[in-house]
């Protein structure tokens, strides 16, 4: 919604984001190729590029995977998340260059169809013959699907749950790529520091996800009393909700964000209509619930975006008794203001 509403500020930050992203990518490629050519001037150009693009893509994937949990652990990291989808598309471009060059260099011009060669040539029994390129292919297919559907158009048309499930495949892509690198390049390039980098990367990615996941599911996210009383559930104490902020409570597996503002309390679905951002980590800004990811806004009373925008989120009825917030177990469909 904010695209036209706040066009100037939005696009300036976005442009700067993309500029720094590509500066980082070019810096990696230049340093990687420069050092390789300086130390090993006889290296074959295609293989140098294959290695530079592959390594850059793998590093970028780590960064992308770490931004989500970092932003959940501390909101100062939220700006990194703002244009993460361009990071995803850039990752796909690097991975495609790497995959395409590998495919042509290692499989074309032989006695077997290069597509067939990609699947069968390096496979065989035993660990030392465990194929690795096919895992790169599977990861590339996932990255393609994600990059191709990253536009909001697909989010709306594929429906949010399907889109979200598809974008969770990035974890499968990461697992495939760890196999791709461990059973591929690391079998030849055996310097301990390189193995350490891949292992360290895994520890950081898994560690951040575990810590942020634990934070989200810790006991104070559970409702006070999950018994139904006339369709209402005891959710939390009013005093526990910070002013203009929310507390997130899990009810029957659904996350609900309970906001406190201007002496009032409201409860809405925690899921932003834009890209499923966690609304409960947002804030009331100019009287609207504002998503922490890209700034989409919703009116707390109705769950509808202020006109001319048309997004709506489910809201829950709220009753306050003795300083305790009770919310309806089932949401209401958001009422339109207009």
């Amino acid at each position: 919604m904010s695209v036209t509403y706040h066009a100037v500020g939005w696009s300036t930050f976005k442009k700067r984001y993309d500029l720094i992203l590509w500066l980082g990518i070019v810096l990696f490629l230049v340093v990687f190729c420069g050092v390789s050519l300086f130390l090993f001037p006889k290296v074959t150009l295609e293989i140098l590029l294959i290695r530079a693009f592959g390594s850059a893509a793998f590093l970028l994937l780590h960064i992308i995977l770490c931004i989500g949990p970092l932003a959940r652990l501390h909101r100062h990291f939220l700006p990194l998340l703002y244009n993460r989808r361009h990071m995803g598309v850039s990752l796909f471009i690097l991975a495609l260059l790497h995959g395409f060059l590998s495919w042509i260099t290692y499989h074309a011009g032989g006695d077997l169809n290069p597509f067939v060669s990609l699947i069968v040539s390096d496979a065989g029994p035993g660990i030392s013959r465990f194929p690795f390129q096919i895992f790169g292919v599977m990861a590339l297919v996932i990255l393609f699907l994600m990059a191709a559907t990253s536009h909001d158009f697909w989010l709306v048309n594929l429906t949010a749950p399907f889109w979200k499930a598809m974008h969770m495949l990035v974890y499968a892509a990461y697992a495939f790529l760890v196999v791709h690198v461990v059973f591929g390049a690391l079998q030849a390039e055996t310097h301990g520091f390189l193995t350490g980098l891949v292992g360290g990367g895994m520890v950081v990615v898994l560690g951040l996800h575990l810590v942020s996941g634990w934070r989200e599911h810790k006991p104070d996210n559970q409702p006070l009393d999950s018994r139904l009383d006339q369709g209402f559930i005891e959710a939390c104490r009013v005093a526990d909700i910070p002013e203009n902020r929310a507390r997130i409570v899990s009810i029957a597996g659904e996350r609900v964000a309970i906001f406190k503002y201007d002496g009032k309390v409201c409860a809405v679905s925690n899921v932003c209509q834009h890209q499923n951002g966690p609304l409960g980590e947002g804030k009331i800004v100019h009287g609207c619930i504002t998503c922490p990811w890209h700034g989409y806004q919703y009116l707390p009373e109705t769950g509808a975006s202020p006109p001319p925008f048309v997004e709506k989120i489910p809201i829950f009825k709220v009753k306050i008794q003795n300083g305790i917030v009770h919310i309806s177990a089932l949401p209401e469909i958001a009422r339109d203001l207009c």
Partner: protein
Amino acid sequence: MKNTDDEFFIGWSPMPPNTRITLMKSLWILFFIVIVTAVAGSALQRTIGTASFEYETVRDFEGYFHKDPVPMLVVDRSGQSGHENPRSRYLLVHPFKFGFSKNSASQLNGQFISLRGKLIYRGQDTMIEVIPESVKPVLRSVEPQSDTPTPFMDLGEVSLCGEIVDSKCYFGVMNPGDWKPHRACAIRCISGGIPAVLHVKMSTGQSRVYILASANGESIQQAILPHVAIPVEISGQLRMLGDLSILFIHPESISPLCSAAASVNRIEPKEP
């Protein structure tokens, strides 16, 4: 990590001060990680050797063609200074992932020919990627010595540990052109008729290459494919042909090595 202030970043409004500080710190850390990984990833590569492929230079060659044990051009250097060996032997292959055509090899065997091609070399090991249409028999009035095949010098039975690679990539067309990343490519090249070689790292740290040839005259190319680019041990009859080391093997004698002792020569062949 605790959120200690009430700052809230929205992309369409100015960035709050503490968020900006964290962002700048994060960017510096990210750039540091970018540089460390790029330097480590490039500087710690160990498989790139001093091998070359003159892919932009086409040269003319003349010499005797021999098809056994692998197609090669024997060039007489006896009149030239600076060449220790009176004969240079260039292995011959076709473009892409194909060896020298078997049909032409049978027809040309023993003849003096001229050809055009691109030079591939790694240390003493040399090869020409031949432009197939350029190969022509040349009639000569005086026959030089090279048409009489040099007799093999027999060095006896040896057992070597190393890695089977395709000679074309390993000699320089792909650098690095060995081990797992290159396995699929080496398999396609050897399957396409490019001579297979055993690359052995001697205990002195130097590398040596042994051309693999069949002990019984049957083609070994397909039989050795499962053993390409993994640590193996091979036993066979070692013979020298000029400065080429040739290992005559039965593919059944190849056994996978499970230890990392790969590429360490167990029984070093005697120097000729």
